[in-house]
């Protein structure tokens, strides 16, 4: 666990202080029974010495208070460190996930990443808060207790040893049964999370089919399963403690049994027996504390492993060591050269030997059926995935030789599924370009036909977009995301099916305005011929292959499949 080590080193001074304070606490806690034993022995022997008793009592009071102060100080430091470590860890995970590209993200799934970043880190925090002190305190106490008790009676040491052994074995057996179940419980709670998320996203569908009952049952099935597992684990976990108390009590009984003989035979004093009983209890209690930490360890380890899995995932797409930077300012072209690509989980190529290029100040369109690989092309161009073979060139440089951020800087992207962040409209618009002037923003909003909407709304640019942009219509969201892409002033503007929620009037207005944007290459992805009929170049995709390239007119002549598709749309579609 090199990550733990890293945090340990980062906060080593705090840990040293925790250790020092706990050391003092243990010293004081251990000295107390010793003082009592001394007093009792003097009393029993009838050698009453008030001075001795008084001195010892003052000593004891002093130690009790010192122990308290030391323990509070150690708690202060340890809770802070525990929370700080988890705070750092959370940032580290978050940064790592943000650094992922789609290819790494696919491995985990979004909802799993969310639980790992929230639930699992909480589990770790709870564990650290409890264990950061206990892991120091308990062993020190155990060792100290053993040393002190052997001072009073060496030959009874085997009783403590035996009891510790029994405790140890119990814990091991317990872990053996519960650990696998803990894993299962975690999986089931992921599943519950998934069902709830699905129910949230499919709210209207579930209601419209009146499938509330069905969904309740689906949830109920998992709920039953997780209840069964938790019950099993809880039964074991709650039986452990009483069993531990039994061991402690039986230890005391055995100590008295063995010492009785010794005392009668005058080998041993009564005060020593009482001290020994107290030390043995302290040793066993510290063993119990350790076992408690160990018992919550499985849950924490599982959470920790799930977090570690994220941190240890190697980013597949890396920046080059010596990136080329100078050649991007004057954009000339994008070129796809013999590009082939396959998603890891699928068997067949989604893109098969793709060749085409995109030029400055021209509108290039990619059309094709659903699943023909249109969006995949864009994901490859933005390097969310890397090509399996072939090259993607920007200004004749392979995009793998450019820094990712540098590459994406050139691109303004409006996605298929429109994404806006909760917050003000202006914040969303300036998302790609913080220093955009009001005029630039106004212009972009004019292009995307959203300026009227903004100016008519109550708070204008300060209009608050709610979570998941529920207070905007699909068309408003799309127009805002188009404006956002334009405001970024990129060299390449990509519209990935981002006109789908717009009515024709708005759609055609936007496209007319887009033509006026200079110094930019525009890439439109669409299923609809009417969206791209006037593009300078149309790339027609069929089943992952380029079936034809040219203008609309050229393709109508040269590409049969394109002709068919155009026909299917214009050949007067009846209803719908």
């Amino acid at each position, binding site marked *: 666990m090199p990550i733990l080590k890293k945090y340990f080193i980062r906060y080593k001074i705090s840990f040293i202080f925790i250790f020092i304070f706990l050391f003092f606490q243990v010293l004081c806690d251990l000295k107390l029974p010793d003082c009592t034993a001394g007093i009792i022995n003097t009393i029993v022997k009838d050698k009453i010495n008030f001075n001795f008793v008084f001195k010892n009592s003052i000593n004891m009071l002093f130690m009790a208070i010192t122990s308290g102060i030391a323990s509070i100080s150690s708690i202060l430091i340890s809770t802070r460190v525990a929370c700080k470590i988890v705070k750092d860890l959370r940032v580290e995970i978050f940064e790592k996930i*943000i650094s992922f590209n789609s290819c790494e993200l696919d491995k985990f799934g979004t909802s799993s990443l969310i639980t790992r970043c929230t639930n699992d880190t909480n589990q770790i925090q709870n564990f650290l808060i409890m264990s950061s002190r206990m892991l120091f305190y308990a062993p020190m106490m155990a060792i100290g207790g053993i040393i002190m008790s052997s001072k009073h009676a060496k030959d009874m040491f085997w009783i403590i040893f035996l009891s510790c052994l029994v405790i140890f074995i119990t814990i091991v057996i317990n872990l053996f049964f519960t650990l696998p179940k803990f894993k299962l419980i975690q999986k089931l709670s992921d599943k519950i999370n998934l069902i709830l998320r699905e129910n949230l996203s*499919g709210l209207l569908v579930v209601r419209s089919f009146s499938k509330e009952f069905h969904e309740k049952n689906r949830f109920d099935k998992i709920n039953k399963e997780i209840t069964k597992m938790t019950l099993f684990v809880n039964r074991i976990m709650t039986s452990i403690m009483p069993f531990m108390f039994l061991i402690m009590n039986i230890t005391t009984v055995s100590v008295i049994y063995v010492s009785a003989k010794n005392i009668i035979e005058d080998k041993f004093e009564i005060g020593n027996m009482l001290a020994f009983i107290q030390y043995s209890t302290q040793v066993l209690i510290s063993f119990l504390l350790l076992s408690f930490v160990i018992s919550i360890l499985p849950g924490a380890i599982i959470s920790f492993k799930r977090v570690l899995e994220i941190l240890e995932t190697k980013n597949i797409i890396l920046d080059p060591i010596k990136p080329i930077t100078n050649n991007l300012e004057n954009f000339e072209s994008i070129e796809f050269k013999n590009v082939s690509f396959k998603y890891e989980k699928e068997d067949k190529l989604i893109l098969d030997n793709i060749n085409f290029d995109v030029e400055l100040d021209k509108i290039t369109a990619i059309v094709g059926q659903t699943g023909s690989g249109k969006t995949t092309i864009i994901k490859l161009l933005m390097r969310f995935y890397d090509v399996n073979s072939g090259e993607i060139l920007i200004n004749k440089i392979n995009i793998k030789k450019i820094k990712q951020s540098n590459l994406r800087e050139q691109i303004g992207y409006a*996605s298929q599924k429109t994404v806006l962040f909760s917050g003000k409209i202006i914040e969303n618009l300036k998302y790609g370009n913080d220093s955009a002037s009001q005029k630039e923003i106004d212009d972009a909003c004019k292009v995307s036909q959203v300026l009227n909407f903004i100016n008519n709304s109550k708070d204008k640019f300060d209009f608050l977009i709610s979570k998941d942009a529920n207070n905007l219509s699909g068309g408003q969201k799309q127009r805002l995301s188009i404006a956002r892409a334009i405001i970024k002033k990129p060299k390449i503007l990509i519209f990935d099916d981002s006109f789908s929620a717009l009515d024709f009037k708005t759609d055609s207005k936007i496209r007319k305005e887009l033509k006026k944007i200079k110094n930019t290459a525009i890439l439109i992805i669409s299923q609809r011929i009417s969206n791209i009929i006037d593009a300078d170049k149309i790339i027609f995709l069929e089943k992952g292959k380029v079936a034809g390239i040219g203008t609309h007119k050229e393709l109508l002549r040269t590409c049969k499949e394109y002709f068919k598709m155009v026909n299917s749309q214009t050949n007067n579609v009846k209803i719908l």
Partner: protein
Amino acid sequence: MMMNRHKCKKTARAKNLKGSILKLLNYLKFYKSSFLFVLILATASNILSTLGPKILSKATNILTSEFLNQNSKKINISLLEINKILINAAIIYFLSLLLSILQSNIISDISSKIIYKLREDINRKFHCLPICYFDNNSHGDILSRMTNDVETINQTLSQNFIQITTAVVSIISMTIIIFTINIKLAFVTIFIVPISSLIIFLITKQTQKYFVKQQNYLGNINSKIQEDFENHVIIKSYNSETKTIKEFTKINNELYKNSWISNFFSSLLIPISQVISNIIYVFVCIYSFYLILKKEILIGDFQAFISYVRSFSQPVNQVSNIVNMIQQTAAASERIFEFLEQNEESKDIKDNLFFNSDLKKYIEFKNVNFSYSKNKKTIENLNLKIKSGQKVAIVGPTGSGKTTIMKLLMRFYDIDSGEILINKKNILLYKKSDLRNLFSMVMQDSWLFNGTILENISYPKRNVNLQQIKKATIDSQAHDFINKLKNKYQTIINEDSENISAGQKQLLNIARAFVANSEILILDEATSNIDNYTEKLIQKAINKLMTNKTCFIIAHRLSTIENADLILVINDGKIIEQGNHKQLIKNKKFYFDLYNSQFSSNN
């Protein structure tokens, strides 16, 4: 009807922790008799184990008395006696163990049942809440209530509940026993209890505040994480990783501040009660020596007393630990009950009407008004009559209220004023599920769940055979692509349905509508994600499906609705034009402009 508007307002957060705990206790009342039994078991087990030191003290007393009056003849007898006492003590400890294991098993059983019930209730509630609740609250926050907060309560019930019973019993039985040993000593010990209680009370007051804050920041950070992970592609493509991380760090720091303080205060209780217990210990020692000298107590009694004083701190610690568990639980249960107490969708009336499935459905909107927020009317004085089997197209600019009309018709929202009638009866008079079953919806945002394709398609109906499903997929043109998949109909749609394309998703949604085969079809931009090639085929199939059905078609693309019987042109929530395509073109008004604009770029 105005009532419904108020339902959706966010209720102010009542910081009533006591109330939340009481509500939680309400969940426990079904298990009253079991709890009583557990209480008896816990008491018995505890009394037995607290008797232990008292019994053992007899052995010490014998030892010391023997020792003090050296009498070698008695030694053998007293050794026998000591052994007897020790065996008794061992038996008592064993009995105590058995009872306590039995008790903890019963408690585990009850607590798991309660958590099960709580989850079930939350889930039931989820499906009864009005749609506007989900519009007004962030999904991350709702999710956090349903998972994190329930988990907190689970922890308390399953682990800390046993402690609370045993700890309380221990304190009581120990108090009684120390009084039987020596009243004077007992008073010295008990004197400290109110002092420590006061300290504990003061600390918990502080902790409470920070726990609520911590729980809220947890909710915030969860929302943030969810939003950012789901919008990952946009963050990357806009190079805003640094900005996102900065925002995250800010919330994270707040969370850190509150969580360390609340955790510090709550773990303060143990050392403080330990110091108090140590001080009691010292006083007890000093006073005992005095009493021993005065021969008022024996050394064995002192030993027993010390062991009680020592173990006194343990249940007190547990109780104080429980106090802060209760705080966490109260904070969590407050959030849960706030959710559980939300107003539900208006209930179906008791003597509801039934739809006659043979009867054709005639829909009428009468002076309907509706608004999402106070500021702006979404639908204004809408009047509309639709005959059975009519194909109605609704067109208009985005945000004009097209989809809202459909949502009102299906009672996802209740209208502010006016009436919506089906066969001349107000839709409020029907059962909601009956009403909604009249409709099949295919929306722009397709929805699939994590399950096989077969399960997804057969979703609307329980008893569909494979043949019906195949027919539906053939009709919706989904059959071809499904057959090309490795596992065909058994292909599992993964989380977030990322393993099939947007168009394929929509094909499955349309197939689902075929399976549902409802009387009224709503197509809300249904084909906007499907390529024309497939769309043409789908249109043929939908045409077939639409015969004898009333259809509502919401579309931006006017070419797709030219043949509708009735075209409604909506702007700002009002119908500004209606008629068929030819009439509207002749009118040369809004529709005419809209229609021509789509060809403008072709010219």
